[in-house]
């Protein structure tokens, strides 16, 4: 299928007749994805293509039954005047949708529909999915309180004893994972991702494609976004206009290194989607990882949390601003606050991965304090049992080969 009307540069997976049958509220969001089809990750394109093909072959009665609860709600909602050609949902449109009394029900029904579609895809394609790896490291330097560090994760995991502190293990583990043998069904952008507060792993030279994103390294982009966002009048029209301009500004000139267009646009979207990614390095790592799992589904992801500065007097009331500008008070690190932030955010990284079918039941999750000779591991017994059998600490080569062997299977 190819539809010139949609302005896409590549084959469009959506039959306009199918688009017309979908609930009205689906159209702007789907159109936005189609408009930027060539900027989507391979995983997203595969998912949309599969969904559209599956919906197209669904019998009429099943199709109607699937969407009927949403259509029924839409009839009661006062929705914006969306047409088949509406390109995206504006901030204003989102406001109208969200304040509808029926919004909570609508949202729940949308989630149900996608759960059903996801389950159908898993049943058809689940066996073909590759194994995944997520490695998280906490910020260093904090006085760690007694008791469990990750309350919800520790009961599900096993401790791996290590011969060296994890800070020493990490670069070697990363190098081995990034340089692992190429698999023909895994595209370069789906191999290894790094999301980190300060630059370390993303600067390492390794064999193999790595998508490395660093909060500090992206400082010029963040500052430009903050500058534009904070110099607008706070009303809907200007917010929409500013977001629109931020969707189009040239990021390449502000980035210290060259990124592929899909990754460059990923960065733009992470910064535009809030959740503290513009302001706090650890929020960037967590939210970036969550979005990466949802969109790019990388096979291996390394998340390095860091130490943020303490909030400064006066300027901390304008959190949305650059804390360094015009404030003569010097930066002071806040290891304790950063530790508490990262405790929760590590758990959120795990939970966000477990929401995605690509990760559920096939992910090895490792998390560690940098100075400790141990790591908490969650994942399959096949991986964990041999490594947790004895009380002898693992050497770094033992751990890295176990991890890379497991990923290769």
């Amino acid at each position: 299928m190819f539809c010139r009307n949609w302005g896409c540069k590549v084959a469009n997976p959506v039959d306009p007749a199918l688009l017309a049958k979908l609930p009205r509220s689906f159209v702007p969001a789907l159109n936005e994805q189609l408009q930027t089809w060539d900027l989507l990750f391979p995983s997203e394109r595969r998912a949309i293509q599969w969904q559209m093909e599956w919906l197209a072959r669904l019998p009429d009665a099943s199709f109607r039954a699937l969407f009927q609860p949403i259509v029924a709600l839409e009839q009661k909602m006062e929705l914006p005047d969306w047409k088949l050609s509406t390109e995206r949902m504006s901030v204003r449109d989102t406001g109208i949708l969200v304040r509808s009394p029926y919004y909570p029900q609508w949202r729940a029904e949308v989630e149900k529909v996608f759960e059903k579609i996801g389950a159908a895809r898993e049943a058809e394609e689940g066996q073909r999915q590759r194994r995944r790896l997520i490695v998280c490291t906490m910020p260093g330097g904090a006085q760690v309180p007694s008791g469990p560090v990750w309350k919800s994760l520790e009961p599900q995991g096993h401790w791996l004893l290590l011969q060296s502190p994890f800070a020493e293990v990490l670069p070697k583990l990363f190098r081995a994972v990034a340089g692992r043998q190429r698999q023909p069904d895994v595209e370069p952008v789906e191999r290894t991702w790094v999301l980190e507060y300060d630059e370390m792993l993303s600067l390492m030279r390794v064999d193999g494609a790595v998508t490395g994103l660093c909060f500090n390294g992206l400082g010029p982009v963040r500052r430009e976004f903050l500058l534009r966002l904070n110099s607008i009048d706070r009303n809907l029209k200007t917010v929409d206009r500013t977001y629109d301009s931020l969707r189009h500004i040239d990021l390449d000139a502000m980035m210290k290194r060259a990124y592929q267009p899909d990754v460059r646009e990923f960065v733009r979207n992470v910064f535009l989607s809030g959740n503290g990614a513009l302001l706090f390095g650890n929020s960037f790592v967590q939210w970036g990882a969550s979005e990466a799992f949802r969109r790019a589904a990388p096979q291996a992801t390394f998340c390095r949390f860091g130490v943020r500065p303490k909030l400064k007097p006066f300027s901390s009331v304008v959190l949305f601003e650059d804390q360094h500008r015009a404030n003569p008070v010097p930066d002071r690190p806040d290891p304790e606050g950063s530790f508490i932030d990262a405790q929760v955010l590590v758990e959120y990284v795990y939970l966000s991965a477990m929401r995605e079918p690509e990760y559920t039941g096939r992910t090895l999750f490792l998390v560690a304090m940098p100075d400790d000779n141990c790591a908490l591991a969650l994942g399959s017994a096949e991986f964990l049992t041999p490594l947790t059998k004895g009380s002898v600490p693992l050497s770094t080569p033992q751990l890295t080969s176990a991890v890379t062997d497991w990923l290769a299977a």
Partner: protein
Amino acid sequence: MLRRTLLRLLGLGLARRFALAQTAEPASRSSPKLVLVTTGGIRRQESFSEQGVGNIPHLAGELFPQALFYPYVWNEGTTAHFNTISSILTGVWQHVDDWGKDRPANPTLFQYLQAQRKVGANETWLVTSNKALTAKIGVDANVILAKQLLIESVERIIMGHSPHHKLQRDVLLDELTTIMQDDYERIGWSIPSESSILDPELKQVFLAALADFINGPNSPTSGDELTWFVASEVLRRVSPTILVMNFSDVEVAHSGTYSLHLAGIRNNDALVWRLWNYLQTLPAYRNNVTMVVMPEFGRDPDGTSTNGFFNHRSDSSSNRMSWAMILGSGVPKPAVVSREVRQIDFAPSLGALLGVNCSQAAGRVLPELGV
């Protein structure tokens, strides 16, 4: 499970405390006054739960035994700031523009009081930390966006819109004064009352107090501290019948800094305790004030697609089920009411305490208030 845990927690040693509280002298019910404190989103797991109670030592400690406590208060409306506070103030779930472009679609407690008790705007005040709350939230009332005053002043300096270039104490005070003197309407203040903050003499007193605040021992890192300070000045100098306050430090959660969110909850707890004690020092309030404390909503549960505690959008009990504490002369008898109630029940109930009928409210009067 949640309910069982909560009731068990609330039951710990409270019978004794209730017994002590009930022997206290009954409060006078003459010329009742109301102080309603709303906060941003606070989940049960960070407040009235076994793991969260350490964040609210004053609410769960000193205040709880004196209170009429509703552990299960539902927000069935839009879980955003403007709509929630408008719903609490009107007794009707509001679905208006959440950027504060529109007025609430029904009369607020302020309007009922002014119309039925024939009092002026000077009796109805709202002091808020949340910039999303424009003056439209308190139609016909005095509205002060205290945190916004601080934000504007800081912004003017760091964005280079001020002749001052460094963000220092004396400079900040200068900016605050400039805005207070000439420019208060721009930050959204609505001051219809001649005898309040517009009075030149009172304004000078207020500015002098603001200087004390800025030069005080604690650097003003918290907008809620300023909100408390402004509200305390209003209570002391104007003694309105209704003061609604809104704290928002907890909303730092939107940026994902859990430690700062917890600090916001603890600061909230400390400010509520300070406010209650302050009211006991004011003759106009000591024996006839009812103080209500209620979060606007919770926050999203961990692991949701809305990114857990960062946001308050999900249709979940973690987000929708909150709590409320009532203290003071409106409380016939301290108790924990385990029945589920709604936020829209509070306007008609508090209205009844003040002797007004919130005729358009959809909520029901809470019988425990005995009105």
